[in-house]
């Protein structure tokens, strides 16, 4: 099975997308880090092999997994049923959701305001937020961007869009690059979404192992520690 191969190879190949804090980013010194990245590193440690990160943009992520270049895929990816037709997702390791954010001094004060006709809403190309924004704001002018969450913030900050819709943890993590209070993040969520890792259906052994891994780390608190450090607080900013 795949696990045997990994053991023989002595290497776990993980495809990541560097879409920005807090899940996956490249630090000031060029080191790859983030919540998902550290979880993957933990996996490799438990397997007793070394880890190799394959860094793709969104277009390259799925092909990398499907073509066998990578054993698994670690990104803040929502396991939709359509996607699950093609790849095998682990059980969710955390829940998040899409939220709306605006510039602090914006005339759009609530999610409700954004429903106005012609509101320009920035979303990430291919992300679940794109879908949700389309459902939640049928009259709005949805703009899909490529290249990661920080660019959504930039677009909203520059006035190219009135509001942005993205994963709440991503928005919180990424807005730290701006002076505090630059953005208003709406308290209400458009959706509640699980996040999961992905692998192929022909890697059942790996999938089983990963699910077990997630059980273990949530039982012994290592998962919570990771999330508290990266997602639920700004602590990581001090170190990276």
């Amino acid at each position, binding site marked *: 099975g795949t696990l045997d191969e990994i053991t023989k190879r002595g290497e776990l190949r993980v495809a990541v997308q560097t879409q920005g804090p807090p899940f996956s980013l490249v630090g000031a010194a060029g080191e790859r880090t983030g919540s998902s990245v550290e979880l993957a590193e933990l996996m490799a440690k438990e397997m007793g092999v070394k880890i190799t990160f394959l860094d793709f943009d*969104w*277009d390259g992520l*799925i*092909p990398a997994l*499907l*073509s066998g270049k990578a054993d698994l895929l670690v990104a803040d990816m929502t396991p*939709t049923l*359509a*996607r699950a*037709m*093609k*790849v095998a997702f682990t059980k969710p390791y955390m829940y998040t959701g899409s939220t709306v954010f605006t510039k602090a001094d914006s005339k759009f004060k609530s999610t409700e305001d954004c429903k106005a006709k012609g509101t320009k809403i*920035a979303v990430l*190309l*291919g992300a679940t937020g794109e879908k949700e924004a389309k459902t939640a704001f049928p009259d709005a002018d949805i*703009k*899909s*961007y*490529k*290249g990661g969450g920080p660019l959504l913030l*930039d677009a909203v900050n*520059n*006035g*190219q869009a009135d509001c942005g819709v993205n994963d709440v943890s991503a928005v919180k993590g990424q807005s730290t690059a701006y002076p505090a209070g630059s953005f208003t993040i709406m308290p209400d969520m458009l959706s509640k979404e699980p996040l999961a890792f992905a692998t192929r259906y022909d890697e059942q052994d790996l999938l089983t192992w990963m699910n077990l891994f997630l059980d273990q780390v949530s039982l012994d608190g290592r998962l919570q520690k990771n999330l508290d450090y990266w997602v639920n607080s700004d602590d990581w900013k001090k170190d990276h």
Partner: protein
Amino acid sequence: MLENFSFRTIVEYLPLFGQGLVTTVWLSLLSFAGALAVGIVLSAMNLQRGWLFRVPAKAYIDAVRATPLLAQLYFLYFGLPRLGIILPELVVGILALSLNSGAYVAEIIRAGILSIPRGQVEAGVASGMTYVQRMRLVILPQAFKVTIPPLLGQAIVLVKDSALLSLIAVAELTRAGQLLASDRFMPAEGFVTIAAFYLLLYYGLKGLAALSGRWLGLQPARSSI
């Protein structure tokens, strides 16, 4: 990815590809018209004897040729708002493509004009034509002929470059394929379909080049030596 290649899903997404294709086509058409306008102005500046027009034109052409379209696109998309100019994505996209391709078109037109034999210019001078008359009656009609094939070559480049506009939220052909790849996790289906559509456009333009060449009575190239 090949063994599970799903034509059914492609068919399901065809309307989306169709929309993307239409966007790509009219976007490219507008941009190309813009590129021609920019190119004509630049080449006219570039052919002046005085430095006042020539130097800025040359500087612009070089700067555009030496930097990637991506950087130019960002320059416009994020730069203009800082000057208080907020334009819709499509306008910025068309502007960026026009300004970018315009630099290449300028070079093509200049080469076309310089390829006109000296004797033609002298014949115009000798019959008492002014500079503008020579340009309009003698040089440009002949230069037009020489520039058609390279211009269509540039049009092909422009059509492909327009894919970059998906970066700033313009839903064109490449976007359709990316959606298929990210919604359904079917990258092979998505990208192969994109390629097929671009190839279609390529052959269309190539056919147009051949046709226009025949209309203008260009010599077919020698096939072998």
